[in-house]
């Protein structure tokens, strides 16, 4: 068992009266590609926001590379090597592709950064016109750019929020290859949220299933997809009782 890079332990998060994350615990192994799936509203994006510092957990621990990082600000998390994409694409629209890449702060000398930007752009297939304004790119290319941009951080852990949604299977394939490539070449760890089951099944070594703010099941893609609890969570068979603590599984 490889050393876990990210450990989430008994994390709780309320929003007003809504109990969004209810004692969520899981680990992400270093240099792995881990999937995080679950029905809409189960807390996946909230979990991302907690790990990347957008939200501060009410209680519980978030340990990244051996350090408790719960409540650190997003820019600090980014500097520590935790990078993310957003569900709705967020490229800097009025800036060029290259400017989008070079905006990301780093300690490296300018020449090295430009070279790395070119390498990453080439890997995702955007190397052609670095001066193109990002806002003029197609939807799919904007997604690719946002994806490429986070590697300027030289991240250790990358959280991908539905980057496969709404793009063609060919492009999905290319992105999966890039992810595998960065995993093997640079030892980057990925935590992937997506509804595209084909992608999760192909890409991930381990899958975590969330439901109602908790981890419901974990295992290999095959194990998880045959888990009765998971199937019920998705199809909504279980009758919800108020309180929700005693759930017969």
């Amino acid at each position, binding site marked *: 068992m490889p050393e876990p890079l990210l450990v989430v332990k008994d994390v709780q998060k309320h929003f007003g009266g809504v109990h969004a994350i209810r004692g969520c615990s899981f680990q992400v192994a270093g240099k792995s590609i881990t999937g995080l799936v679950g029905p809409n509203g189960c807390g996946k994006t909230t979990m991302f926001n907690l790990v990347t510092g957008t939200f501060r957990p009410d209680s519980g621990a978030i340990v990244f590379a051996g350090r408790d990082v719960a409540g650190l600000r*997003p820019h600090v998390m*980014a500097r520590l090597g935790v990078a993310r994409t957003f569900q709705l694409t967020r490229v800097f629209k009025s*800036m060029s592709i290259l400017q989008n890449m070079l905006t990301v702060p780093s300690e490296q000398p300018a020449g090295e950064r430009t070279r790395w930007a070119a390498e990453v752009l080439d890997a995702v297939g955007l190397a052609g016109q670095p001066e193109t304004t990002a806002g003029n790119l197609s939807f799919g*290319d904007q997604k690719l750019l946002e994806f490429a941009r986070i590697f300027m951080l030289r991240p250790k852990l990358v959280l991908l929020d539905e980057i496969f949604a709404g793009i063609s299977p060919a492009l999905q394939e290319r992105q999966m290859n890039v992810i595998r490539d960065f995993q093997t070449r640079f030892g980057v760890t990925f935590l992937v949220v997506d509804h595209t089951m084909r992608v999760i099944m192909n890409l991930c070594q381990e899958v975590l299933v969330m439901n109602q703010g908790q981890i419901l099941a974990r295992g290999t893609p095959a194990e998880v997809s045959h888990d009765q609890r998971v199937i019920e969570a998705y199809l909504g068979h279980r009758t919800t009782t108020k309180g929700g603590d005693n759930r017969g599984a």
Partner: protein
Amino acid sequence: MKNSKFLRLAPWVVALVALLVVPFTASGYITALFLSLLMYVTLAYGWNIISGYTGYVSFGQVAFFGVGGYTCAILAKGGVHWLVGSLVGGLVAGLLAILLGLVMLRLKGAYFAVGMLGLTQLFVALAGALKRVTNGSTGIFLPPSLTLVPVYLTMLGLALAAIIGTIFLHRSAFGLRLMAIREDEEAAESLGIHTTVYKIIAFSISAVIVAIAGGVMTWYVSFIDPQSAFPASLNLTMVIMAVFGGPGTVWGPLVGATSLGLIAELLWARYPGLYLVIYGIILLLIILYIPRGVVPSLGDFLRRRGEPVRKRRSGAVA
């Protein structure tokens, strides 16, 4: 190579020489007109740094104009040279902006805009209330400046510094990150940009520029009181000029400030009561018809005429 660079710089050198010669050759009226234009240029560039680049639309940068003005006036009254007084005014405003920025820049969008409106009123109220420092509504009278030349040259230097500073800013990683904040602050933060620090620096630089201009102008008019320190007209004009030229661009504020500045001087003289109304109407027309400003719109227009439509990269989604 060398030749083309020379050709490119030549018009600028000619313009600069012409501007340098103005106060020694032209009439007092013309010199005063150019001084006003240089002030507008300075203020528009000052506003552009926080609002054009960072996207935090401030309706209250004039607050720092007053801070610079009062600092200069108080120091000059105490025997300090006005130029030193203006520079100290810039420093005071810059430090004040850091402190205020810690609070104000936590406000977003409309709240920041309204907050800055309120801040200006707060400053007016304070200037009236702190009678021992500001002499209240009576104001501070300074000895009238006998020659325009030093004031003019200082303002010219300040305007040039603001323009050259913006040229470098636009090309720098720092400038890129300010633009990233404007485009999407949350995304910028997720990429490791300490947005608070960047915003405060931009706010502070803007305050320094505006405040020095305030100091110089206060010495020029030899008087300051709460009304003249925070003029609503300047507050509006610096916004309009930058927006007209193109906020967040290098040359927008220059184009906006010189063209509208000339109109402003004309209107001011002919319709002292109505010129703010006319200015408001101009701002309306700009927002409705060229919201990105003259410089980017003109650039697009020339590019479209200059080259055939380039083939779009074929995206993933057909």
